[in-house]
C-alpha cells in the first residue's frame, strides 16, 4: 500500500510530520490534475489544522504539567 510505504519511508519522522506528509501526498495524488494554487490552498488547510491540534496538545500538556506541579 502506498500509505504503508509512506509510513515506512517517514518512520523516523515525528508523528505529526508523518501525518502531514501522508495527508499532503494523498491530496497531491488526488489533485494530480488540479491547479497548483488550488492545491496550495488545500495544503494550507491541512497544515493549519495539524498545527492547531499541535498547539492545543501543547496547551493541554502545559496545563496538566501545571496541575501536577
Amino acid at each position, binding site marked *: 500500500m502506498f500509505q504503508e*510505504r509512506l509510513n515506512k519511508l517517514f518512520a523516523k519522522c515525528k508523528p505529526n*510530520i508523518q501525518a*502531514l506528509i501522508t495527508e499532503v501526498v494523498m491530496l497531491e495524488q488526488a489533485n494530480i*490534475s488540479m491547479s497548483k494554487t488550488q492545491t*496550495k490552498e488545500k*495544503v*494550507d488547510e491541512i*497544515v*493549519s489544522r495539524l498545527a492547531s491540534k499541535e*498547539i492545543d496538545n501543547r496547551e493541554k500538556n502545559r496545563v496538566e504539567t501545571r496541575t501536577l506541579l
Partner: protein
Amino acid sequence: MIFERIALVNFRQYFDRQRLEFAKDRQRKVTVIHGVNGAGKTSLLRAINWCLYGSEYIDKVGELISKEAISRVEVSESVTMSVELSFLHDGDRYIVKRSLRGIKMIDANVQSDLPDEFTMVHMHEDGQSEQIKNPIGTINTILPSNIRSYFLFDGEQIDEFAKPESSKQVKHAIYHVFRLETLDNARKSLEAVATDYRRELKDISSGELGRIADEEQKARTELERSENEQQEAQEEKESVRRKMKDIEEQLGKMKSTNELQDRHDRIIKDTKQRRKELEDVTSLIRDISTCTYFSIIPDTVKNALLFLETKREKGGIPANIKQQFVRDLINQKQCICGRPLTENCTEYIQLLSLINATPLDSLEDDVLTLSATLRMFEERANNQSTHLGRQMKRRIELLNLILDLDTEADDVRYRLKASPLEEVSGLEKQRQLLQADMDNYTMTLGALNERIEKLNKYLVQLGKELLQAQKNDRKQKLLTTKLNLAQQGADAIKGDYQGHSNIIRQEVETKTKEIFRRLSWKDGYFQSIKIDKDFSLEIIDQYGKQARPDLSTGERQILSLSFITAMACIREEEAPLIIDTPFGYLSTEHRSNVTKYLPDLCDQLVLLVTDEELHSQARANLEPHIGNEYRLEFDKKTNYTTIIEC
C-alpha cells in the same frame, strides 16, 4: 483496482449494450478476449481508458459514438454513448460511468453540446450506494491517470523502456508509479506554503503583548489608587454631611424657638387686649356704681311715694286749678260739662289761657312729677344692679383669662430661655463652611469618578488590544507552528526523497532482473539488469557489458514487460494489467515463458489477443489461470462488434 465488469453502450463499434465480466479469482485471474484485427480489441482498451480518464486521452470525441447508433436516429435527435466499469479496490466496490450525449447533425456527424458526464458510486455491502463527490480525485488515488499506460497498454509498444533513449521514460515511470512525483509535488507545496507563512510572520509585529501588559499594569495601579482616593473622599463627605445634619437639627430647634417667640408675642398682645378690656369694664363698673347711690335707700323712696300718694288721695294738695285736669279737657276737646269743644270756640280758648296762666312749678305738678320719677327708681335700681352684676362677671372672666395668658407667657418664656437665639448666626456660619467643604468633596469626587471611568474604558480598550495581540500572538504562534510543520515536512520529503527514490530504483532493478530472468529464455546470458542513477535500464551481459543494443525487439519487449511488472509488484497496490496484443513480437519461447510466469506477476490480467497469438503452449500455460474468455465478433455487414462469451 481489480476490474469486475464492463458495459459498453454505443461505444465505437460496440453497438447497443455490450458487456463482459473480468476474471478476478486469485487462481483464475486471467481474462482472455479474442478478436481479429479491427474487431474491437483496441477499442475495448480505449473504452476502459475513456471511462476512467475521459476524453483528454482519446483522439476525437465524435468518433467514439457508434456509427450504427447514429445511423439509427434522425437528424436533431440525440444519441447516448456510455461505458460503465465496476471494480474492487481495498475491499470496496466502485462503479464508474462515463456517458456522452450527442445530437445528430445534418451531415450525419454528431455534435455533443455538453461535456461527458462522469460519475462514481461506492457500493456498500448492504446494497446501499454512495455517490463519490470527487470521482476524478478518487480515481487518481486508486490508479492515477499518469501511470495508466503502465497498466493498460498496447503490447507492441511496450518496448520503449528498453530503447536507448529510455532513461527518461524509465525515470518517468518510476517517478509516477511510485508517486515520487506526488511526493515531490507535496514537497513543493509544503515549501510554497512555508514561504507564505514566513512572509506572513514578518508582517505581524511582535512584542505587542509585553507592551500591552505593561500598559494594563500601569492602568490598574492607577485605577486602584483612584478608587482608594474616591473611597476616602466619600467618607469625608459623609462625615461633613453628618455634621451639617446636626447643625440643621439645631437650627430647626431654633426655628421652633422662633415659633415660641411668636407665640409669646401673641400672648402678650392678647394679654394687653384683655387688660384694656378689663380697664373698660372697670371703668363701666365705676360709672355704674358711682351713680347708683339711689338704690341704697329704697325704703326712703318707698316711704316718700307712700306719703305723696296719701297726701294726694286725702286731698292734701292745695285746690289750685289742676293743670292736668285742664290739659286733659283740652286734649279730649271736651268741656267740663262734657260738651264737645271746637278749637276756636270760647270755652276752648279759656281753657288754654288757664294752662298758660298756671305756674309750672306748682306743687301739684311737682308732686305728680316727683311721684312719677320716684316710681321709676325701683326699676332703675334693678337695671343698674343687673348691669353691674354683668360687668362684675365679665371682670372676673377677664381676670381669669389674663391669669391664664400670664401663665402661658411664663411657660413660653421659660422654654425660650432653654434655647438662646443668639447662637443661630454662629451655627449658620458653621453650616456655610461645611457646605463649602461638601462642595469641594463633590467636585473632587466628580473628577475622580471621571478619571476612574476613563481608566476603566482604557482597560476595556487594552483588553481588546490584548485579545487582538493575543490573537496575533496566537496567529503568530500558529503561523510559527505551521511554518515549522510545513518546513519540516518539506525537509523530510526532501531528505528522504533521494534515498527513497534510490531504494525504489534498486528495488525495481532487483525485481526487474528477477522477472526478466524468468521471462527471458536466454537464461545465463544476461548477468544483470541495472537501473542506474540516471534511470537508464541496462542489461549487463555475462561479459559485464551493456547488452541492450543487442536485444531483439522481442527481448526488448520482455525487458519492458519485466520492468512494468516489476513496478507493479513493488508498488504493492492491486492493479490490473491489460495488454492489447501482448505477444505480437515475441518468439515462441518468450511467449511460452511469458504466459507461464506472467499471471503470477500481477493481480489481474486481461489479454486482448488475436488468434495467432494464443495457441499451443502459450494457451496451455495460461489455461489454469483463465477465468473468463470472450470473443469479439465483428459483423462486416453491420460494422458493429458483439462480445460473445466463450
